[in-house]
């Protein structure tokens, strides 16, 4: 469960998020809004990458201000640009890198890496240099590196922005099958069709909070 209680975020003079009070228990939650509307800040608040100026964010019963490191173990985050997330030279090594501080044996790490790469179609690329993958494959690798930790919640910040149609669909299909609670910030409205709930942000405020169809209609009106 993710809860925002009277959350405000200001950066200098600018109010990025204003008086946000939300409870997010649904499995699939979408967040849309214009550039600069506060979507990414909202996403970053959930795993403590950003902290509220006032108010509280509680994730899985823990306050992000006091338990950010603990929360990050259970809340995976997928960024727009996979290049910024890949740390190790090869695919398997990058996934294994996520498990470095888990105290697992070498065999356990290898098994978990193999399993996650097989599940998401990257097993044949295990020993390939990560920087030579296509954009879609890199995003899949970034996703594998997050999912190998088996998080309870997954936050995705514009995961399909840099992908072509085929890879966008691949990520969308994959998202549908994930057992985790997923919060997706996106401009790709088609991604949200099957979601349980969609929030529309405008100038740091939630201006619509509804089913995908109603929320997206509101968003289209807002942008026209």
């Amino acid at each position: 469960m993710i809860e925002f209680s009277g959350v405000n975020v200001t950066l200098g003079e600018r109010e990025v998020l204003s008086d946000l009070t939300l409870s997010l228990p649904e499995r699939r939650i979408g967040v849309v809004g214009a550039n600069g509307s506060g979507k990414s800040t909202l996403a970053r608040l959930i795993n403590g990458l950003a902290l509220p100026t006032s108010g509280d964010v509680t994730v899985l019963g823990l306050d992000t201000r006091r338990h950010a490191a603990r929360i990050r173990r259970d809340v995976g985050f997928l960024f727009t640009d996979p290049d910024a997330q890949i740390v190790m030279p090869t695919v398997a090594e990058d996934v294994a890198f996520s498990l470095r501080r888990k105290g697992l044996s070498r065999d356990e790490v290898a098994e978990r890496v193999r399993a996650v790469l097989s599940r998401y179609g990257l097993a044949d690329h295990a020993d390939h240099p990560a920087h030579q993958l296509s954009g879609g494959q890199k995003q899949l690798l970034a996703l594998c590196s997050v999912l190998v930790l088996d998080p309870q919640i997954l936050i995705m910040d514009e995961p399909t922005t840099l992908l072509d149609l085929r890879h966008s669909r691949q990520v969308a299909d994959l998202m549908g099958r994930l057992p985790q609670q997923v919060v997706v910030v996106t401009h790709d409205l088609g991604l949200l069709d099957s979601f349980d709930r969609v929030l529309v942000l405008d100038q740091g405020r939630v201006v619509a909070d509804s089913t995908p169809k109603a929320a997206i209609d509101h968003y289209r009106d807002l942008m026209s």
Partner: protein
Amino acid sequence: MTGIYLPGDSFLHRLPAGAKLLGLALLCTTLLLLGSPLWLGGFTVLVVLLYAVSGVGPAAAWAQVRPLRWFAVVLFVMQFALVDLYGAVSSTLRIVLAVALAGLVTLTTRFADMTACFERCFAPLRAFGIDPFRVSLLLSLTVRSVPVISALATRVRDAQRARGVSWSVRAFAVPLVVSALRHADALGEALSARGLDD
């Protein structure tokens, strides 16, 4: 060290990273001590044999020493001019063989094994408050940054060409540095998100 590990099952692949690094240090030291052209020739045969045994093909082997080619030519010419033919051959050969050996270690060792080995080597630094994991992470990020910065540089150069800008150091360096700093910021955030800032 740029992630060019070639999977294989040779005895070199199976050898632990630490043993390979120690072997590399010993062989390079031996290389420096070899005086006679006969021994240098023998050493060259040894390096060729090690490549053959490892199953690394000629293309990958050439890729290890190829970046040295102009440096090797300049070194050879200078040594020939300043010393003699034997000095030029032996100095150039020593450098090329040392790089070839280092390349062979890289080609047959997973980077993760290498960093794990470094982590073990740096373990005594804990006594001085230095986290070995952070040292090996620094190494990983340095290696990973090579293709990333190279891609950023290509992007900046392409953008300049698209705008018809001729070569200008400032017009190239400023966006490259800004992009690199942005990338560093994003990478730091991604590492935090992966729980690596505990």
